[in-house]
């Protein structure tokens, strides 16, 4: 599936997730964060990879509970004392701070899930290659080796077992020695073959002149337009946040959660920001649904 939000230019996508990460850290306010989470989850669900959330859930719950429980236990700042736990005052402020921290973390985690789905490795490499072409080349060549070496190692393991070399039987020292032998076979073989790869690079003129880069992704009007919108919104959010908007004051004493005018402006900006991918994706969905 490469339509909808995924089909946007890598620069636009990268900007969106970068901005989102920034929001998750700057907008320390439960309402902002919750809105972000709801919209991001709906994006994930529309894109049909909700399964990734489920997979992450156990680890997430563990961390989440730890944060919510530990913060009130170690921080006693705040005015409103809820109760005493082993002679320690548990304050409303510290509980609320823990919850907000959890929400912020959730948003960041969801961002990374959605990022992994939409910005695939090759898109990232594409961006990276434009910035640092030489290192990107090395990284790309290395990437090719990961599945290659894994496949070779499994072949070697299979065959060497017939020679009695196996990491599954024998004493610990024997197993370790055998493991080293397997890796040695792999390395000698692969280095030998790498020489041939070098020949193949030379044969195709590597290093004769300055390299250019082939571009697969083209920035179209929609990409440019969205990139502009996202940039403006991020700018507003950054400036607003620097002025102290959209941030719940919890310590040393909890203030009202009710939005001021400035908070509302920031909230609308953030809302639009988060709605952009949902709208792009939703439009796509509708056009498919009613085109039949």
């Amino acid at each position, binding site marked *: 599936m490469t339509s909808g939000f995924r089909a946007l230019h890598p620069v636009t996508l990268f900007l969106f997730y970068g901005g989102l990460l920034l929001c998750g850290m700057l907008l320390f306010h439960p309402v902002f964060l919750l809105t972000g989470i709801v919209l991001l989850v709906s994006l994930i669900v529309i894109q049909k990879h909700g399964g990734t959330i489920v997979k992450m859930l156990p680890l997430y719950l563990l961390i989440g509970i730890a944060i919510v429980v530990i913060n009130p236990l170690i921080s006693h700042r705040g005015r409103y004392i809820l109760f005493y736990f082993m002679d320690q005052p548990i304050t409303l402020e510290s509980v609320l701070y823990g919850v907000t921290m959890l929400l912020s973390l959730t948003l960041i985690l969801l961002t990374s899930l959605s990022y992994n789905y939409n910005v695939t490795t*090759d898109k990232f490499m594409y961006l990276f290659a434009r910035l640092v072409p030489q290192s990107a080349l090395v990284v*790309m*060549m290395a*990437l*090719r080796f990961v*599945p*290659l070496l894994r*496949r070779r190692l499994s*072949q*070697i393991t*299979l*065959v*060497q*077992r*017939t*020679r*009695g*070399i196996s990491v599954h039987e024998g004493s610990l020292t024997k197993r370790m020695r055998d493991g080293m*032998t397997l890796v*040695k*076979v792999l390395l*000698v*073989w692969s280095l*030998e*073959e*790498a020489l*041939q*790869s070098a*020949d*193949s*690079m*030379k*044969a*195709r*003129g*590597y*290093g*004769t*002149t*300055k*390299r*250019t*880069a*082939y*571009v*697969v992704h083209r920035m179209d009007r929609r990409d440019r337009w969205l990139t502009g919108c996202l940039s403006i919104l991020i700018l507003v959010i950054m400036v607003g946040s620097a002025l102290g908007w959209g941030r719940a004051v919890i310590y040393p004493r909890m203030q009202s959660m009710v939005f001021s005018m400035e908070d509302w402006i920031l909230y609308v900006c953030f809302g639009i920001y988060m709605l952009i991918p949902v709208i792009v994706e939703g439009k796509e969905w509708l056009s498919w649904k009613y085109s039949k």
Partner: protein
Amino acid sequence: MAIMEILQVKQLSFAYPDEQHQVLRDITFTVNEGDFVVLCGASGCGKTTLLRQLKPELTPVGQNHGTIYYNGNLLNELPAQQSAQEIGMVFQNPDNSIVMDVVWHELSFGMENLGYSLPVMRSRLAEIAQFFGLEPLLYKPIHELSGGQKQLLNLASVLLLQPKLLLLDEPTSQLDPVAAREFISMVYRLNREFSTTVIISEHRLEEVIPLADQMIMLEKGKLKYSGSPREVSQQIQTHRIHDLKSHDDLSDDFKYLPSVTQLFWTMQTEEAYSDLHIPLTVREGKQWLQTLDWNDGAVHAIANQSIPLSMQKMQSPERSKESILLECREVTFQYEKKSAEVLKKLDLQIYKGEMLAILGGNGAGKSTLLQLLAGLLKPRRGTVKQADHVKIGYLAQNPLLYFSHDTVAEELSTAAHYAGVAEPEVVIAKLIKQLQLEGLEQKHPHDISGGQQQKTALAIVLLLNPDILLLDEPTKGLDPLAKIALARQLLELRQAGHTIVIVTHDVEFAASYSSRCAMLFDGMITATDVPSTFFSENVFYTTAVNRVVRDWLPGILTAEEVLKLWHVPASG
């Protein structure tokens, strides 16, 4: 205007540094623009070295003598950029020549190196991707491609630079016959449609020789024959007749010709023959046979004879319930839960003393079956049952998987130690002699040739003294002579009491040397029979000689068999 000579090689000699021995000696030839040149000769005769001399970036360090002209200018004065563009090279192993991880990036790699502008890259890529049918693969990671697709990708990425001269170093040696044929026909198309000059070194000569304008045969670094394929076959024949008359050892050069041509020449008594009538392909072979007088008494008698029983018996051992060594019963196998079943309720018996050849297309599960037989994999359902005290030896396709020591001798002695051989020195010495590995004991296993590596790995397996020897594609990448040598060794092993199972794509090899053939298709063994019956039913999956003579001599698979029946030379 005279035909342009794109390449002129004059008295070229080459030796690696600090070595007396010259790898290439006094080689002279010319190649015209648009020629299709086939370079052949035994492994290690200098084919690769010669090809590398023609590509300045890849010329190894050493002592060069002689001159090479490219388009009338000295080759080594060619600017690096021009050389990269105009002389393209495709290597033997498709995996090793790929540099990038995604198809489009591999294709654009060469163009990026030479600093082409984006519009140029776009239009060239579009053109080539369509020509090769690579469009659906453009965004795929390369490791998901098949071997044949990878080699086509290599060819395409070289062609994007629009070379005038294309060098190919045994490009199909790692491919199965179907992919190899596709690759060669692609190269041939480039040659015909764009007049790209092609120099290709090959072992699969049956398919390439009929396409060639020029054939160059090297022997120990020297140019032995050159000319059109028919001229070369004539020269080889003259040589052979001379050898026959003087009772010298017969030269093996004959084995490099297509089997139809071999058949033709062995049935001729005259030394010279009109060029036009020498058959190179199945079609030409049939036309030639039609000119023979089949009503001639002697020929007629043979044609009506089916295969003499004596020939079958010689090859096929007794098959009874008691002689089953290994048996598959309804074996089902799949690699992962979600993947397709590779083998489906497969039944197969292996009898004592036989040489079973398992044939099948690419990805039919031949290697998987062999690994199951070897006990390296466990079937999901069904059983692989061994007779009591049967030891199994398994030789994988890639011999490099076996080597973990610094010398051949060390490899063998550790293997002997592991197998618990009583007198290791004696046994190893015997094996080295039997497999002709003398003189390699102190060499590193990675420094010896592919055929020698295979034999070393075979020796390692044989030290376990297996009753059944399982070989995975043993003829892959071997030249015709090495194949014959391998066959001889397998025959000796059979005589010594080993049972042999090979999986192979090589129809000619299976037809000539196995005692029984099995066809693996759709996860099942669909047919098993002695080669003569097995192959004579097939139209596509059969030897070239069978396709030529089947109308007259059904069940005959090889030139040797024809000759056995054919003592009276006939002439048209």
